[in-house]
């Protein structure tokens, strides 16, 4: 007996999940009871610590504590663009690989390469999964950020296989998160929508614009911002506390590394607490110069303190929409992912930049939203259970560029109705091959024309009359600008073809079918929906 799992491997934390054949997903807690497992290893003498226990060592034993190493996987030391400042220092090992120098028992030095650290980390995850499921883990789907290079993907696959976790597939984090979200309700996968998936982690932020067409996901744009994430929020909060401490005791709480570590550790706790409740206490024993620090902070104060970081995050979401050549109006849903997406202010800031028609999915806005920190590993688990039943060769074949690189429709295609409006059949960004049909009628006419058009995007503006409460007599400030509701409307653009249906009885049921083959030929046909009716057909090319 064996099982397959999905793993989300982050710089800050990792999580793992298992899905059954019905699509039910369990996020697995490690033996410490953590579902969000810090991606941290720490060494004290001959003992190895992992997860939360290792992270706790950052205060007392930072130089032997390895953290934030995920992004280094598959890179040589010289290729690193940023160096982690927390925990053990990154060094260049003998073969040019990045690594860490750790003091072990009896003053012995051990060099742990990034590959080795990753392997040890994955082994711990494997243990946690086997402990929970009670079966050996045969295969895994691991998620990576979209900017992971081919080299990094190969290296991670090798490391994981080495750790005894056979990689079935590596998939992109935003796609995994979106898959989990789409699978959470039965019909969602079939809805043609454009999503922004925005992942706010600990040390970086990632975003992707993804179109979903007929259940096929296509990434339209991605954005990455290193250094923007939860750690920056912790930093802002720590600075605030340090100032208060300075005022109270005239002592600098950031004068030594140990005090800083204590301050940061408590700031993380306070930050998470404020995601759930309005006020939090903060207490640190012997923070600096032997002074204990006790204070309380409310959510509003925290939000003001972290204002700059939060608006950077919001701007980051806006940026990815622009990169996709779209406007916020074009986005149907924004899915907030990553631990930092639990921050209520972040969710509300993000919803402010989108029109009302755009749904923002975050726990503070909807109780139905899945835990943002778990979305990625859930998606990975679902994918693992999907491909588990396929041959290895079949999966490999499916991942070939010829399969994956696909033509996508640039403009929507549809027909003109009797009122002259454009009625879409295929939306933009639909991948080939595709076939879709639309049911229509001839009304009272005996002969009708199916005019196939490309849609042309326009923005319709409707002024909404300021709502006037009737029983509200004091007509105070009417200086508010009238609200303008904008929406994207497609009009008939280029006429592609005409098809004529004749000799129809009034109110017959008709069907228009548009079918684009692999090579891009567009077949259009129209027919009466009755036995024996002959379809009228034609072809259009690009």
């Amino acid at each position, binding site marked *: 007996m064996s099982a397959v799992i999905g793993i989300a491997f982050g710089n800050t934390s990792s999580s793992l999940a298992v899905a059954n054949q019905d699509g039910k997903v369990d996020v697995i807690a490690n033996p410490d009871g953590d579902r969000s497992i810090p991606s941290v290893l720490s060494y004290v003498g001959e003992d190895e610590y992992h997860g939360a226990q290792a992270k706790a060592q950052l205060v007392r034993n930072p130089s032997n504590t390895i953290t934030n190493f995920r992004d280094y996987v598959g890179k040589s030391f010289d290729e690193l663009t940023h160096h982690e400042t927390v925990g053990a220092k990154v060094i260049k090992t003998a073969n040019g690989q990045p690594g860490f120098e750790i003091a072990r028992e009896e003053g012995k030095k051990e060099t742990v390469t990034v590959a080795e650290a990753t392997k040890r980390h994955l082994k711990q995850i494997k243990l946690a999964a086997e402990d929970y499921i009670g079966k050996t883990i045969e295969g895994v789907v691991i998620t990576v950020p979209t900017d992971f290079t081919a080299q990094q993907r190969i290296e991670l696959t090798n490391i994981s296989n080495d750790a005894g976790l056979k990689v079935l597939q590596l998939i992109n984090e935003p796609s995994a998160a979106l898959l989990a979200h789409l699978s959470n309700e039965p019909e969602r996968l079939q809805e043609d929508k454009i999503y922004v998936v925005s992942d706010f982690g600990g040390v970086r932020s990632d975003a992707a614009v993804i179109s979903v067409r*007929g*259940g*096929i996901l296509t990434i339209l744009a991605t954005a990455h911002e290193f250094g923007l994430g939860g750690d920056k929020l912790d930093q802002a909060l720590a600075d605030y506390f340090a100032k208060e401490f300075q005022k109270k005791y005239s002592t600098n709480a950031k004068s030594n590394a140990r005090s800083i570590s204590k301050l940061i550790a408590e700031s993380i706790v306070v930050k998470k607490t404020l995601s759930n409740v309005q006020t939090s206490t903060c207490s640190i024993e012997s923070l600096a110069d032997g002074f204990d620090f006790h204070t309380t902070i409310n959510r509003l104060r925290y939000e003001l303190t972290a204002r700059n970081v939060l608006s950077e995050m919001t701007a980051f979401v806006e940026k990815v929409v622009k990169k996709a050549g779209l406007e916020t109006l074009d986005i149907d849903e924004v899915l907030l992912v990553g631990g930092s997406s639990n921050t209520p202010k972040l969710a509300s800031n993000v919803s402010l930049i989108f029109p009302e028609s755009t749904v923002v999915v975050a726990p503070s806005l909807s109780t139905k939203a899945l835990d943002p920190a778990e979305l990625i590993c859930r998606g990975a688990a679902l994918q693992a259970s999907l491909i588990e039943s396929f041959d290895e060769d079949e999966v490999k074949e499916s991942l070939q560029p010829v399969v994956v690189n696909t033509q996508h429709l640039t403009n929507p295609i549809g027909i003109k109705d009797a009122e*002259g409006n454009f009625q879409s059949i295929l939306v933009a960004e639909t991948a080939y091959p595709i076939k879709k049909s639309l049911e*229509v009628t001839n009304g009272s006419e005996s002969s009708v024309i199916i005019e196939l058009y490309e849609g042309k995007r326009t923005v319709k503006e409707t002024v909404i009359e300021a709502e006037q409460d009737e029983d509200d007599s004091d007509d105070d400030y009417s200086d508010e600008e009238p609200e303008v509701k904008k929406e994207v409307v497609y009009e008939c653009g280029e006429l592609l073809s005409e098809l*004529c249906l004749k000799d129809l009885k009034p109110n017959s049921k008709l069907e228009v079918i548009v079918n684009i083959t692999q090579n891009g030929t567009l077949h259009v046909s129209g027919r009466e929906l009755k036995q024996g009716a002959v379809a009228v057909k034609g072809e259009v090319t690009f």
Partner: protein
Amino acid sequence: MSITLPSGTRSETFKAVHKYTEPTRRPIEPVGPLFLAHASRTLRGHTWSEFEKLEAEKNVTVVQENGDDDIGDEDQDEDLLAHDPREWKSADLYAVLGLSKLRYRANEDQIRRAHRKQVLKHHPDKKSASGGLEQDGFFKIIQKAFEIMLDSNKRQQYDSVDTNADVLPPPAKSKYDFFEAFGPVFESEARFSKKQPVPLLGDASATKEQVDEFYNFWGKFDSWKTFEFKDDDVPDDTANRDHKRYIERKNIAARKKFKQEDNKRVIDLVERAHLEDPRIKAFKDEAKKEKERKKWEREAGSRQAAEAAAAKKAAEEEAAKKAAEDAAASKQNSKKAKEAAKAAKKKNKRAVRGSVKDVDFFGDAAQSAGIEEDVDYLLEKFSDVQLGEVAAKVTGADAATVKQAFVDVAAELGVSSSLKYFK
């Protein structure tokens, strides 16, 4: 609300006007259930329609994979081979293709393969070459059958009237197992349902809901059967328009009649099954029992009171009986006691009388008459207690004691003066 198309008419039925905008090539994300479907479409170069068909056929072939190689290998009998090609409609078209086993279950691939085999076997060139008669009658029927089977509309019309594929219900008066006999009938009939899947008869273990669902569904059975296949041929010549219209009208009327008859047939079938279904009977019995049980429960209150009253009465009777018995018994006891007392008294009297004689009248035999007189007198006066006491004192005692006892008791009684000896 459905979309209405603009009116208009064109001389050509189709006109391509303009190319559509150049598509964009992008990678799609290899995740999710629909990606794998996309991959198989792309890898095998299928159009969407082909893909849909393959997916549908996959289900069929899975069931019939075994022994699929000998498809169409059946031999046609002499009658069929000699069938008049002008009368092709009355031939068994599945048997013509060697598919008399699969029939409506045959998929397109199987039909093509069977057809190829028949062509090889019955092609006129081949027959004449092997010395057979130059006859292409049967070959014509094969081609006709193939044409029908590949056109989904025509095939449906043929399947509607292909009674060879039907499973008939058992003759009414014969002996049969209900489920064995009717199960296959409904299974076969189910293929005509517009709504799929169709609930099947099931077996004796079915729940009431399942059985109800079954009869509900079949009570409203909506079949797609059509009867165009039985149409009389409409004459091609345009000369006799009236006759043509007449035939057409006749055909339409006939189709309607066939359809009605067929609907009635299904209704009758369902009714008969319902009537004979042992489960229905069981459910009815159960319902009846349940009703009785409910009634019984409903009346439990008054019944309990009645029971209590009866019990009370029985208890009372029992008590009365016991009392009577006790009384009788105690009566008996007192009688016995009395008799015992009487006997004791007699014995005591005898002892008292005897006592004086035993001590030889105190050595004074001359006085014996007077002594005995006194004793008798005293005995008369004695209470039962005194009698007992005196008897106890005097029995076996010496003369003095006896004498003293008498003197004492006489004094006690205050009768000393009336006595002769014991004064």
